[in-house]
């Protein structure tokens, strides 16, 4: 399996596809950093968490967090949509499977290699932004902020891995590259993208009037889960993920939540994202293991 991971990683890092994605992400980060520079002066400093403000502050240009929310699913899909069916269509699958390896190491290796690529890409982005941000605002991040950023990084990787798992699932189900690309993209447009999201803006409001059900339904969307988790992780002032009534907020002090409290707040969201990722992977795993390998 190590061999397969090694080969897949080499493929990813030499592919033009990854280069384009990486450039896209870097450009978005640069734009977002510029937005943060413009906006951070006016941002609230009451919380004392200035450094994480770099990521969450935007002006009329969206913040880095929003950009990452848009790009991570696209990266995940781009990494996974042809993982299995390209091997079939190029005729390499039967050649690999006739080597003395277990069949599942093929799909495991591909999934892990994708996750490593995703992690390296996002870690680079976050470190670059942090570095430039440090120069720009001259405020060093505190230990708590670093931990918060780390959890943010973990949730990005899980979120990206979910989309990659979804794309791999379709690449196992369909032999055509076009279909396996379009299916996860369609799901992303319907449920996952923050810019124009028919699910969040039309479907859910049409179904229900009750606030509770409204939130429940919104949380079907993986993007929504991710957005909630991100906000609570990076903005310590953020209190509740539900709707707070006036009686809830009465007497509430505007003080940042401690790290544990923030984590507690997003624990369900993180768990749900991890679950989604595992479900996608498990289904593709089972389907792949039972698939007939004949090419004709």
């Amino acid at each position, binding site marked *: 399996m190590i*061999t397969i991971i090694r*080969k897949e990683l080499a493929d990813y890092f030499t592919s033009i596809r990854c280069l384009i994605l990486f450039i896209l992400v870097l450009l978005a980060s640069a734009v977002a950093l510029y937005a943060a520079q413009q906006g951070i002066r006016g941002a609230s400093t009451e919380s004392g968490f200035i450094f994480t403000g770099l990521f969450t502050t935007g002006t009329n240009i969206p913040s880095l967090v929003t950009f990452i929310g848009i790009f991570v699913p696209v990266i995940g899909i781009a990494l996974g949509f042809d993982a299995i069916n390209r091997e079939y269509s190029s*005729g390499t699958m*039967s050649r690999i499977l*006739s*080597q*003395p390896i277990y069949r599942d190491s093929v799909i495991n290796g591909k999934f892990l290699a994708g996750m490593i690529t995703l992690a390296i890409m996002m870690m680079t982005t976050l470190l670059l932004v942090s570095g430039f941000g440090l120069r720009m605002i001259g405020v060093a991040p505190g230990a708590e902020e670093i931990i918060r950023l780390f959890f943010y990084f973990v949730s990005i990787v899980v979120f990206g891995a979910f989309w990659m798992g979804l794309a791999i699932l379709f690449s196992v189900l369909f032999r055509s590259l076009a279909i396996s690309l379009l299916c996860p993209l369609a799901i992303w447009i319907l449920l996952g993208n923050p810019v124009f999201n028919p699910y969040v803006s039309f479907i859910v409001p049409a179904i229900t009037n009750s606030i509770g059900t409204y939130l429940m339904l919104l949380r079907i969307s993986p993007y929504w889960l991710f957005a909630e988790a991100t906000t609570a992780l990076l903005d310590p002032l953020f209190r509740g993920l539900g709707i707070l009534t006036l009686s809830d907020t009465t007497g509430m002090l505007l003080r940042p939540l401690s790290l544990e409290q923030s984590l507690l707040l997003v624990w369900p969201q993180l768990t749900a994202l991890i679950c989604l990722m595992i479900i996608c992977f498990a289904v593709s795993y089972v389907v792949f293991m039972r698939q007939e390998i004949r*090419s*004709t």
Partner: protein
Amino acid sequence: MGKNIVLETQDLTKKYDGTTVVDRLNLRIAENEVFGLLGPNGAGKTTTILMLLGLTEPASGSARVFGFDSTREPLQVKRLTGYLPERLGFYENLTARQNLRFIAWLNNMSDEEAEGQIDHVLKAVGLVEKADTAVRKFSRGMKQRLGIADVLVKKPRLAILDEPTAGLDPKGINQILDLIAGLPKMGTTVVMCSHRLYEVQRICHSIAILANGKLVVEGALDVLGREALAGGRYRIEVETDRVSPQLVGIIGKISGVRNVEATGNFLHITTDSDLRAAVSKAVVNSGVALIQMKVQEFSLDDIYKKYFQEG
């Protein structure tokens, strides 16, 4: 022949959606021979191979390769067996060497061992100059040769080749066939699927013919040839300067001779075994000049036709 059996199937059966694709197949393949698996398209050849490698599960029956059960111990089988798929593909963006290196790694070869073996097999298939060219620039024939190199790089003791000469020009075919014919000497048994009968006849020692998933006939090529032409007997053709009735009488009395026919200066003799020595002696002793004599040759076409007409 008392040789070791490397591959054996017992009532191997495969069904796809209720259709029987391979039907109670019993094959035995001896060590260090080239075995030809013949049959029309859809006869179940590829399915049989996939079952041998444990890539698909039989509905019933079993296959053993080097004593390992293909379904239960596929890793051991695949460690010793190289497989050239009918529709073979490579990673087009990688070079020939990188493609082979990946396969060597998957076989747990050390780096030095892999590099040495890669050089060796690339030389064997004549692709040394192209070793560091990306496979996407390869012609069909070069890919096919790389496919053979790919099978050999793991030093298999059994090589299963599905249509190894597909898409090659006559020169390429000859190179590949020579290469395959030389494998048994290096300790590799070969199972080869092909539609081209003359190729099979040229290099295979034994054959099996499949039709509709069933084994039609299996055996050594020369035995099957005689079977097809003369019901299992030898036919000896003798050319002399003249034919006399006495000579026909003398030859007819040699034990083992079944029938003698004279046409012009030719004698057609049907015998139970190869009696060329006895026949030539009889001809010369009777004072007739012997011009030439040969055991009638058969072509695989005859065998193929016979079984498909009967079947």
